[in-house]
């Protein structure tokens, strides 16, 4: 009987272990490949140890991509969070319009990001796109949305915001609905204004939910590929070449497999570290919230 009890936990984790191996194997293989100079032109590679990483970190292209990636991820996550919380606050006031909008709001989430990007590419087209057509009466009909480095990055972030703000809004709305009502009733009795209540009650209590949304969106935005590639292909110049696009170009287009994988490993490390910091922060906030209760 004793040995059965001892063995049970190990048997229970077997499915998870198999699944983990399915993830770890390609990861380990990728990591291993980065130690070689494996490419289409060198199918029998030599071990170069950490040379690929050294090259990555000494390339201007890498630092440019890292900077663009961070700008994109921070920009998208911040705007989505602010807008998502604002939308959730509006929808929380239960009205007929709110309930209808709640259903409509989810629509962008049901569109594949790459399709959303293609759709927006057409809409942002300067001469035939609907956006410039609508802006024409205001004297802004000639905006070249994706032709300048800043415009291309902002347009990409805007598409990301359009697709993913509903995700943040839904999470925040779920959080708002789960908040206890008594503190708000007490604040209302004390005559607290909307802004005071929001700042002192709603936001602190909602913060764990918001942070979950931020973690998801920030992690996802660091790994972005589809939206930017469909919208700008990384251009103009190198202005929107994020780390994922650089990795794709190196590994698939230019067939420098080991070097391309090195980019993805570096990206993995960045995402892992960012996730660790954010999750630790979330844990602290949750503990604080639990203590307050």
């Amino acid at each position: 009987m004793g040995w059965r009890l001892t063995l049970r936990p190990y048997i229970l984790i077997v499915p998870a272990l198999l699944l983990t191996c399915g993830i770890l194997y390609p990861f380990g293989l990728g990591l291993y490949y980065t130690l070689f100079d494996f490419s289409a032109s060198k199918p029998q590679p030599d071990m170069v140890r950490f040379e690929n990483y050294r090259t990555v970190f000494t390339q201007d292209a890498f630092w440019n991509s890292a900077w663009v990636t961070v700008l994109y991820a921070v920009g998208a996550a911040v705007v989505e969070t602010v807008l998502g919380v604002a939308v959730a606050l509006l929808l929380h006031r239960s009205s007929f319009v709110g309930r209808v909008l709640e259903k409509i709001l989810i629509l962008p989430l049901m569109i594949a990001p790459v399709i959303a990007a293609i759709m927006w590419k057409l809409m942002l087209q300067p001469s035939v796109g609907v956006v410039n057509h609508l802006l024409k009466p205001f004297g802004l009909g000639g905006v070249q949305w994706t032709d300048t480095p800043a415009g291309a990055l902002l347009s990409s972030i805007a598409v990301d915001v359009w697709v993913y703000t509903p995700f943040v809004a839904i999470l925040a709305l779920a959080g708002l609905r789960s908040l206890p009502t008594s503190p708000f009733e007490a604040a209302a009795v004390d005559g607290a204004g909307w802004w005071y209540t929001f700042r002192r009650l709603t936001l602190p209590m909602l913060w764990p939910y918001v942070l979950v949304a931020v973690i998801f969106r920030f992690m996802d935005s660091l790994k972005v590929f589809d939206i930017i590639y469909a919208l700008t292909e990384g251009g103009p110049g190198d202005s929107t070449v994020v780390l994922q696009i650089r990795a794709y170009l190196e590994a698939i287009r230019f067939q420098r497999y080991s070097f391309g994988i090195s980019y993805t490993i570096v990206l993995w490390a960045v995402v892992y570290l960012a996730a660790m910091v954010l999750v630790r922060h979330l844990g602290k906030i949750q503990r604080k919230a639990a203590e307050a209760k």
Partner: protein
Amino acid sequence: MDTHVHDRRRFLALTAGAAATPLLAACGAGFGSDDKKSDGSAADDVTGSFDWKREKGRTVKALLNKHPYTDALIADLKSFTAKTGIKVEYDVFPEDNYFDKLTVDLSSGRASYDVFMLGAYMVWQYGPPGWLEDLGPWMRNSSATGAEWDQADFFPNLLQADQWSLKAGAPLGQGGQYALPWGWETNVVAYNTEVFGKLGLKPAETFDELREIAGVIKRKAPAAGYDGMYGIAVRGSRSWATIHPGFMTMYARNGLHDFTVHGGKLRPAMNTPEAIAFTQDWAGMVKQGGPPSWTSYTWYQCSSDLGAKKAGMLFDADTAAYFQAVAGASPASGKIAFHPGPKGPDGSLATNMWIWSLGMNAKSRKKSASWLFLQWATGKEHLRKAAVTNNHIDPVRKSISQDAAYKDKMKHLPGFIETFETVVDQTKIQFTPQAQFFDATTSWAAALQEIYGGQNARSVLNGLAGDLAAKVG
């Protein structure tokens, strides 16, 4: 202290380690098999008299790109099966992800596809790792190749474009024949005759004239009743495909090179004073007379704009204009004419080309059947039918380009045949063959976008040359 936690961690670590060790050890052989070629070719196994039915009952798997040439091929596949008894199974992918699919498939070392479409530039990428079958021995073996295939009937520059010694910088036309030309495109100027007539313009004979006309159209055409029309459609996306059509054609006509070879090493030449001046002028032309949102322009937008009367001229593949020019295809149908485009300072009409070729997977286990397919698909019978009854224009064979029925079909397009005949002898691949072609041209396109965006051409192109020197040198 909970010792169970440590036991579990140790167990997980040991299990993961135990699983990873043999797997990663196996990876040493996981880089792919040794692709060194054996001395002989599978073509040598084919003996006796030539017989179309030799591989009867076999099935060949083809990977194809969505294209009018492909449509013509698929429409005629029954003829091949009737002639040989070989069945052809095929997958068709759109061009956006076709080459990614092909690259991944070939690099995996599997023989998922026996034959596939590729461009001549892809030979430089797929040839060195040994993914492409050398078709030379098949072509030379009279037991494998029927006399009616007639190698001499191909335009020689097209056959040479798919032939390479796999040495960076070595000229084409030497070494293995890694693909066969099947359909091709010259890069010339197509223009809207209606707007040219209204504005009193004539096709440009020099690059200066081309730039001027592009600007004139953009300034004057909207007032002449062509709302939103701009001067010239050329590609501008951050892709290798931006460089090879109009840009490379005009670049070559100016006597410029992408690389020069010094002692067997390649040296980037896109930053010579002449190349910098030309690139600056090209970017200026696009700014003065090109499309809005140029940095996202692929051949598709260029072609569509010519057909939609949004572009007065198109400097791109002749097929991109052809598919807008045929009757009923677009609002501009019947109003599109062809012209060789501006000459270089010395009168050069050097033209870059794109060749849709057919290649064979070196790992194919059905090489003999695959060769029969390639032979049929590039043979006179199919190509003539495809050219006359379908839209497989720009024949790779001399006999078909001179065929009365084909000429009769094409004569309705003003200047098409004349333009083709004017540039055909000077049309070849103007790039230096080397395995980093896609990296070099993608970076070049990015540099062009930066110059278009206002950055200093000299510093951008010097940066590009420095970066490429380290990669290809």
